[in-house]
């Protein structure tokens, strides 16, 4: 009998400690606004963070991309869901949220652009050219004039960078929290993935 009770208590204690550890981990994540993140983004690469902003656009075809903007400037960052999160709900558009996730960087140099151009001509869609405009979602075969222009612009940017590459940043999102303002109180509620 004692063994059974002790066993049950151990399991309960383990479950409780796992829950509180996760809660503690979430509480230690730094919350910053998107404009502050973008101003110092190199300091946050591969860091767990919560970024506050407005959901400007969710890709309607699959909900696999979301674009977060700042309230008072034109700063934008792309957000991609983790496999565990699922897909984004289009109804999030216009919501003030905190996006929890890891900041990622892609360094684009001439070799990368050459590969990208080759892939585009073979009809492979790339994250590097997906900027929230729907051309990237709709074109699936061949390379069109807008893609040629994007490639040319990227080459110019790499040349102008002076360091041989340009960086693209995005967030790998594992949780979204909606910020609801009720009078003077600000309430944060976890948002579920698309249903």
């Amino acid at each position, binding site marked *: 009998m004692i063994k059974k009770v002790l066993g049950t208590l151990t399991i309960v204690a383990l479950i409780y400690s796992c829950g509180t550890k996760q809660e503690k981990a979430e509480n230690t994540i730094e919350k910053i606004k998107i404009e502050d993140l973008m101003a110092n983004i190199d300091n946050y690469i591969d860091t767990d963070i919560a970024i506050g902003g407005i959901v400007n656009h969710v890709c309607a*075809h699959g909900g696999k991309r979301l674009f977060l903007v*700042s309230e008072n400037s034109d700063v934008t960052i792309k957000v991609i869901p983790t496999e565990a999160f699922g897909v984004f709900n289009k109804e999030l558009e*216009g919501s003030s949220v905190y996006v929890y996730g890891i900041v990622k960087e892609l360094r684009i140099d001439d070799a990368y652009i050459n590969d990208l151009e080759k892939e585009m001509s073979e009809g492979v869609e790339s994250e590097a050219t997906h900027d929230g405009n729907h051309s990237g*979602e*709709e074109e699936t075969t061949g390379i069109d004039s807008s893609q040629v222009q994007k490639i040319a612009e990227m080459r110019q940017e790499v040349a102008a960078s002076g360091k041989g590459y340009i960086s693209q940043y995005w967030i790998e999102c594992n949780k979204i929290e909606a910020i609801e303002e009720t009078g003077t109180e600000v309430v944060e509620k976890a948002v579920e993935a698309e249903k």
Partner: protein
Amino acid sequence: MKLRKLNRDLHRDLGYIFFAMTVIYGLSGIALNHIDDWNPNYVIRNKEVSVNISTLNLKTLSRENVIPLLNEIAPGEKYKNHYFPEEGILKIFIKDGNIQIDTRTGQGILETSKRRPIFHQVNYLHYNPKKWWTIFSDIFAGSLILLAVTGLFVLKGKNGITGRGAWLTSLGIIIPILFLLLYYWNVF
């Protein structure tokens, strides 16, 4: 004899179990095949709108100022948020869409999006929304192969795999091979 019965039973039961999955992936497959021609997930509508905003002070534009403006442009729509994506453009988010207004002319576009019934749900499943769904759909994909193989040996005789079945199965194999020869290997 026993093997044929086992084959038939397996084909029958897998067919029953994965009936719904076959319909789901069939529908979403058609939808995604034509992704360039339509949006299978949402019905998106655009409407031109215009409003007189010359009296508004855009620098101090708040929620309280935007809601009456929204009521004028699109009565009944519920305000969510607003911001200026670029100079001269005001974007107002509403419950199922947004309105972008050129603040110099007062002209704008009201975009609304509504979930497309059935297709929204089947496409959601097709996009592998969760890990366990990926596992389940992998089981389904494996079972489809098993269904196809067991299907070859359900019937005996002139309509079986040694008769009519051989011709039709060959046709089904030749079509994708022909396509590969034409467009993948560029043989001709």
